[in-house]
């Protein structure tokens, strides 16, 4: 059983160091357990279950069962834990993370560890998409979709359901197309009505899907890469990078080769980046981890909301506490920052 040990016991317990990275995205949840040599020991990839607290508990339970089944993993102890993703602060409070960083940093760190000379990172996830420009090993520019969720995984997922094909086969359909249909790329509302029209006009599924991939890529490049130089080598990651059609479409639009991290790592990059950052944090700071351990699945968390009422804004404040001890672990939601506990 992997245990979280206090620093004093580190030498005594004789266990090897490992680091846990958690990425709670808008659609999926990623856990990566990494050792000192940046080898991925174990990972968990799940769809979100309503609230981040429930999903994290579920993910942690799966991680725990994976570790319990594997005797090799039991030689490791988790020394530090980092969280990223849109729910990073809540997750940090719930699991007792040591640090929370943005997805942009986490993705950049993970990609650089695998491809040290990377200059452009494309990332398309469930609800958001990013572009990260690196030069000489540091981030010089980034962009994130801000006002519109067009061109993200959720849209593709929705369209796959509408066309009645599983999202896993989406890429294969696109690759098989000889003559992609032209589909509007500016807005998904236009894209959808274009698609319906093409469907009714009798285009083949393959052509429509390939056209959809093209329009998504166009939308992504228009929205995010404004005025940025996309230089090689380019690494493409995130959930959508499992889709062969999109990769091919990117290659066609950018006129160069796109690298996708192999071995299922393309979707785990955020969590891997957090594991790497946790290792740096552990080595540089020599601080005991505050990680609650894999047993956190047994702790009951309670969230409640109340209205502040001190000003006309009347913000609703969300409070998360541990049921047993009544200890408030996180509170957020006010506009003025009055109640915040992280």
């Amino acid at each position, binding site marked *: 059983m992997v245990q979280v040990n206090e620093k004093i016991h580190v030498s005594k317990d004789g266990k090897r160091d490992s680091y846990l990275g958690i990425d709670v995205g808008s659609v999926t949840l990623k856990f990566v357990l990494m050792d000192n040599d940046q080898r991925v020991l174990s990972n968990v990839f799940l769809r979100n279950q309503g609230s981040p607290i429930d999903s994290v508990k579920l993910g942690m339970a799966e991680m725990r069962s994976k570790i319990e089944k594997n005797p090799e993993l039991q030689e490791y102890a988790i020394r530090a834990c980092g969280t990223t993703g849109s729910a990073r602060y809540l997750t940090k409070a719930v699991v007792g993370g040591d640090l929370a960083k943005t*997805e942009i940093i986490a993705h950049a760190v993970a990609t650089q560890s695998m491809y040290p000379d990377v200059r452009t990172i494309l990332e398309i996830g469930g609800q958001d998409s990013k572009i990260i420009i690196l030069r000489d090993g540091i981030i010089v520019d980034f962009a*994130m979709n801000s006002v519109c969720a067009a061109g993200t995984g959720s849209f593709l997922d929705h369209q796959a359901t509408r066309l009645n094909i599983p999202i896993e086969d989406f890429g294969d359909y696109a690759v098989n197309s000889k003559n992609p249909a032209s589909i509007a790329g500016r807005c998904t509302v236009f894209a959808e009505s274009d698609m319906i029209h093409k469907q009714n006009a009798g285009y083949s599924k393959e052509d429509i899907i390939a056209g959809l991939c093209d329009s998504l890529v166009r939308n992504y490049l228009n929205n995010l890469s404004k005025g940025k130089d996309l230089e090689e080598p380019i690494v493409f990651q995130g959930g959508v990078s499992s889709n062969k059609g999109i990769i091919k479409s990117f290659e066609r639009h950018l006129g160069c080769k796109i690298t996708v991290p192999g071995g299922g790592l393309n979707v785990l990059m955020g969590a891997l980046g957090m594991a790497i950052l946790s290792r740096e944090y552990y080595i540089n700071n020599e601080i005991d981890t505050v990680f609650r351990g894999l047993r956190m699945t047994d702790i009951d968390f309670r969230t409640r909301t109340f209205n502040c009422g001190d000003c006309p804004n009347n913000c609703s404040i969300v409070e998360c506490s541990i049921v047993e001890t009544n200890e408030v672990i996180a509170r957020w939601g006010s506009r003025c920052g009055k109640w915040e506990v992280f």
Partner: protein
Amino acid sequence: MIVSFPNMGYSWPAFKTLIECMGVKVVLPDPTNREAVKIGVKYSPEFVCFPFKATLGDFVSAIKKGADTLVMAIDCGPCRFGFYHAVQERILHDMGYKDVRVIPLDQADLLEFKWVKTLFEVTPTKNLFLYTKAVKAVQYFIKKTKYIDDISTAEGLIRCYERNKGDTTRVVKKLLIKLDETNKINELRKFKSVITNEFKKIDIDRSRNPLKVALSGEIHITLEPNDNLDIRRKLGEMGVQLYQNLSVYDWVIHKFHLNYHRKWLEYLARPYMPMDIGGEAVWVIGEYIDRARSGFDGFIHAYPFTCMPEISARTIITNVLHKKYDLPIIYFSFDEHAAESGFRTRLEAFVDLIQGRREQKKHKKEIKLEEKSKEPLYEIHGGSLYNNIVQFIQTG
């Protein structure tokens, strides 16, 4: 007659004095909140920019508190801002507030003295003493806007050093209320020392080496914390020293043709944008160049969604200036949305980005008083108070 005006950040004590000195009662709208924004959005044209919606919401909240005359600034400049008061008056009439008047405060060129007409229009009694009252009103107004500018300058400089989170915010609130209560010219003249003394009471950690970031953009959005999701406080608490030239004082002095700093920025921006196209576009470009030259770590450009002039400035910066001067810049376009997570993620990532750059360059140039003489012609910030605060941070 009860007069009111929309919210614009810390500037309320100044506008309040301006109208109260004319002997008219003033009510303040509630701080811009979800309710006000909801009303503003409901009754505004969909494609208008966010300040229109927010100020309309403020007007409704002021009317509910008893106001019947509303003052709205207008600018017969190139962007649609010049028509806001007229459209808002019609909307308010359509909403059923029939007796409400929206009086334009013409600020296109203050030396044309059209604003005197506005001051007389809000005053019910007309007599010879009105002119002396108007002189006093303007004198107090300019003094108070100057102090508000000072307060926000000191706030931006000091917040990143504070040991107890929230100290600076409390001091600012306290000072604004104090400034509002100070209505004697003798006390007002000494108010600068009150500001410095209050800020010197804050417990600060001098060992920090904060990042230097400049904030610029459209004036209403950058000044009003409820519209820009409190970007100044968030940045300060992330450990960023914030510099902001933009203030009501800066603007008023500019409109009296006395703001040489803005003239300097216009000079810098001339090769890229030869004329004022509305908003703050020209000065944003100028400021970007100025900040890049004086060794800043980053630049933040905030503007309302669909603001034409600011978007023009943005395009010039990304395509030309960013490549030339290499100062990291991030853009925020604000609208009615209140979801903070995406905003926060981008802000944090930006701070991480400039931190990484700084570590790589080992470019740890702190502002020192003697170094200032080498910097471009015009001082970045409000004179003696700026120097006092910087000295306080460095030596105590």
